[in-house]
């Protein structure tokens, strides 16, 4: 399937500013219990964003925030349907999440199914005090009763459109773009 780029929503500076704001909101929301805060990203791009948010929080709080990453492949509900062969990546949570206030981070929130997988996986690791959800982009079209606590930008989209977050860690660029399925000529 071919895609064409339709619009650029965030550039490098925009991403940095947005993450900074999310970090502040996370701080405001959790400052009473900041010692119990931990950030966990959903692989791959959510994990990179989690690292960045934790770094920004460290600057605000003044101490290290535990960071982890989950790979949700083994929890997917569509393993038999995906065209591309799934490959399992590592889940890295090297602290006890029981009693922690977890902020789950992903790049784009869409149907909510990825978040459902991540929630199931997290709960297999322990019993956190609470789980909050932070996303860089919310593009709508939820298929499950899941809502984010922290949103970088709301981007209403059509289903044939898609939002691509490109980060320097994985894509060598820093931008968020809306792409659209190209009509076959």
């Amino acid at each position, binding site marked *: 399937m071919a895609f064409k780029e339709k619009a650029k929503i965030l550039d490098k500076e925009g991403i940095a500013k947005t993450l900074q704001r999310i970090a502040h909101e996370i701080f405001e929301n959790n400052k009473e219990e900041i010692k119990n805060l931990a950030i966990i990203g959903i692989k791959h791009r959510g994990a990179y964003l989690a690292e960045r948010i934790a770094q920004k929080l460290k600057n605000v709080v003044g101490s290290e925030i535990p960071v982890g990453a989950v790979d949700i492949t083994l929890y997917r509900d569509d*393993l038999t349907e995906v065209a591309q062969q799934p490959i399992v990546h590592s889940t890295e949570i090297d602290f006890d999440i029981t009693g922690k206030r977890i902020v789950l981070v992903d790049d784009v929130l869409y149907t909510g199914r990825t978040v459902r997988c991540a929630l*199931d996986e997290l709960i297999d690791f322990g019993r956190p005090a609470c789980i909050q959800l932070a996303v860089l982009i919310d593009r709508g079209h939820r298929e499950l009763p899941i809502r984010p606590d922290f949103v970088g930008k709301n981007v209403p989209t059509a289903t044939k459109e898609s939002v691509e977050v490109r980060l320097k860690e994985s894509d060598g660029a820093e931008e968020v773009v809306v792409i659209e399925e190209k009509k076959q000529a």
Partner: protein
Amino acid sequence: MKKRSIKWTKKHLLGIEDLSREEIELILEQAENFKEILKRPIPKVPTLRGKTIVNLFCEPSTRTRASFELAAKRLSADTLNVATASSSFLKGETLKDTARNIEAMKIDMIIMRHSCSGAPHFLSSRVNATVINAGDGTHEHPTQALLDTFTIKGKLGKVEGLNISIIGDIAHSRVARSNIWALKKLGAKVTVCGPKTLMPAQIDKMGVKVTYDIREALEKADAINVLRIQLERQKKNLFPSIREYVKRFGINKEKLDKFAKKNLVLMHPGPINRGVELSQDVADGEYSVILDQVTNGVAVRMAVLFLLSQIKE
């Protein structure tokens, strides 16, 4: 993010001989991530929910069967054990009929051990389910070789370029054959060592060095895989006495201290004949990674079950 070019395409796992280097590396790499699951507070993932896996073991086994069963359960599959001692094989049912009947119960995979070389291959061409070879006669035992190479990689960081010696009854060993395939494909240098009567003719055609001198097998080795002397086969008088075997080829502390590298990795596929191929002190000693092999076995088998389960008709 690393983009992977290799795609898993095999429906069955019948032997290491059929696998490419990239496929072996994919399994080992995936096994690493499955090993982490085993350390979780709840060491179970929902991936194979609704799949049914049958353990069809027509030969005794503790480790392999338990390991496959646990791997399947850690992935949330349902497992069914069919052991021949208590099955209709004894009433004269053929292998094909047994398998077709089990398959009629709507199962997805058959894990099979059989005393005849090639039995899983036969089965795979006659049933729709995925077939995994858990040891066939003197032919192959692919998951054992995968967990052995995974253990070497875990202990020494790599396999390529290492000197690995396989010691003991090479002729009757499917573990040896699968290990040679796996190690050669991954770029290791393999030496086999044992009594002449337990060395298959033309084994050197597999690209291994043959020696009858234990000293030579130990001196350069980074890892050794000591095979079980299959006492049940010794009625054929393939060597004069157990005592003589122990003296010439049995691994003990004295031989290791004298000839082996200090950081040698010592493996054994189990079950051990203590005091025969391995002395008591060495089996539980500093070089031994035998129990790591068992732990790794579950992770490797989870990776195998996962990859095979992704293949659609």
